[in-house]
């Protein structure tokens, strides 16, 4: 699921504008544990990091809440820019919902001010 960092801005903006408003009713219930399995199996983690934190050159931070499920699904099925395509034969919509549930379950992370090593 590689996507260069420069496509991040466009992707996020379009996703939020297009789908953010309908996110709640369009998000199927997924299983976070199964989502983690899919996230690893399909290699999503290789470009986006194990918690979707993003890597500077290979894939953006996957902020599931900001993106919304329809945008995530659309990006997999008809990817913008360099991200590889993942069709329904590779992962079902339900499988994508599991990934979305996994990404949504990840806590926000601590306040950087609370981490000595980041000061």
């Amino acid at each position, binding site marked *: 699921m590689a996507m260069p960092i420069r496509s991040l801005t466009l992707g996020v903006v379009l996703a939020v504008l297009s789908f953010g408003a309908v996110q709640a009713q369009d998000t199927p219930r997924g299983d976070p544990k199964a989502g983690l399995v899919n996230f690893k*199996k*399909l290699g999503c983690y290789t470009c986006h*990091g*194990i918690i979707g934190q993003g*890597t500077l*050159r290979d894939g953006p931070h996957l902020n599931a809440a900001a993106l919304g499920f329809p945008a995530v699904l659309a990006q997999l099925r008809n990817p913008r*820019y360099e991200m590889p395509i993942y069709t329904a034969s590779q992962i079902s919509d339900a499988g994508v919902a599991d990934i979305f549930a996994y990404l949504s379950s990840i806590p926000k*992370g601590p306040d950087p001010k609370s*981490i000595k*090593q980041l000061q």
Partner: protein
Amino acid sequence: MSKTIKRRQFLAGMAAAPAAGLAATAGKAVAQTTPAPVSSVPPVPMTDRPSSDTPPQTIGKTGSDFMVDVLKSLDIDYIASCPGSTFRGLHESIINYGDNKKPEFITTLHEDTAAAMCHGYYKVAKKPMACMVHGTVGLQHATMAMYNAFADRVPMLVLTGNIGKQETRQAYIEWDHAAQDQGAMVRDFTKWDDQPASLQGFAESTVRAYDMMTTAPMAPVLIVADGDLQEDPIPAEVEKKLHIPKLKMRFQPAGDIAAVREVAKMLIAADSPVIFANRYGRTENAPALLIQLAELIGAPVVDSHNRMNMPNRHPLNHSLRREAALQSADVILALEPIDLFGLNNYVPDLVTRPNDPRRRQANLKIIHIGTEGMMAKSNFQDFQRFAAADLSIAGDAEATMPALIEALKTQMSVADKNRCDGRCAKVKAQTAKLLDQSRQEAAYQWETQPISSARLTMELWDQIKNEDWMMPTETQFLSDWPYRLWDIDKPYRTMGGSGAQGIGYNSPAALGAALANKDKGRLTVAMVGDGDLNMAPGVLWTAAHHKIPILYLVHNNRAYHQEVMMILRMASRRQRVNNKNVYVGTLIDDPAPDYAKIAQGYGLYAQGPVSDPKDLTAAIRRAIDVVKKGEPALIDIVSDGR
């Protein structure tokens, strides 16, 4: 000379002598029953043999002793090598005649390591190191590191041996290792090579090679030292005439002054100039000059990190908002950009590989100052796709900088200066929030397992930030965290990358850097990938043997991670990403190598594998204590891919 002998004649005689002696001795006892063994080595005429009562010896100064004089005249501190018989004369002269000082023999376990150490050493010491590689076979081992250095425009003196005269070569091995033209193997990625036929020729060619390789554009050079020349004594009449040329006042090629004035004119007229620096910083003066230029014209600087160009936290350093800065430019001043085409274009990794021009101002003008066009070879394509600038100056960018700054000061009116000062303040304000954004991103991944690249790098930073540190390794596989969050403030903190992206650069080049840092008392911290370390694990023994202080942190993602992504991309494009074999060939797992044990086996202090991020602080602290005592250390850290 009565008891001396030409080396090759002596060797040939010794090769035949045991067989002849054996035949004579055995003949007394078993002459009636056993025929004398038949030697496959042709007998050497008695007239060419040494007398049996006095062992043959070389008296007086040898050719390789003089070669050491030449190396000493060039102030070469170290010569890295693993031994090879084609240069045994020179090897012996370095350690005995030269007292193993200037150059000191650094023992490596692979020629690629020797050459890569030269690469890293130069980038810190700013003076070349030498390596000595076996004829043909050793030279082939060294080639990848030499190519990296060539692509990175870094000099090194590569010496190899060759038994040039066919009639004095021993059977098999010396023929296998001899070549009609050793330089042919590396001519595509050296600046110059020579195979001198005399000692005077060796002196002149080696000094010429040194002169050429240290004049921009820089690159490795090869000198072939003939075996007979090395090992034979120097005839008295020859020795009297030998002399070593001295290099005196030398300067780098700076840009034409009239063209520089034109550049100043364009920069003063620009509304939104941007500076792009790639292989710009040649000396430790470079960052200060670049800051002076950027502040003078109020321009953001985009740094591609292939040299230590500019402190990362300087408010005019806009590398973290590269595209935003470049999109705003009406003039881009590109300093040793390497890839002028790639500065404004992108070829995405899609099936059709379309050219995707970057979004730029319609009236954008490109100024190029660099040496790229001053040395190019045809075969290997490291010169990148061609793009023309609006104004191009052939000359070393750093050497041109003082003239450009002076021209700007001379040509700027008071109104120009006020306008630039105002712009400078605005440009500086644009970077104010970048550090906080990066901290936020690092915090998000702080607790993950495998350990995130942000955690790995920032745990290290927390313990070196009050030291005089130097980080010699590439960071693109670590999401560039050091450039995002460390304070890279001194002109020697970093040194750029491999040049040609040949894996196996980081571990040995870092050791070369550490060798240069050793005398300066700097703490060298190298973050290397597991794939990289596996290309040259023997470098750890060299570090231990020579007591070179360096901390290796192994960013162990248990894979050739770049290729994991590449194969997944292929499989997904072909709808085969679910195939059970999709990770075949890209993982370094099952069994997972234990790099701490490997390092311990080579004699290093080592810890790991460290899997829990909470264990990092103590592990790094212990390892740094070891390094500060003058020893190498290694920590194996099980890490996320990037």
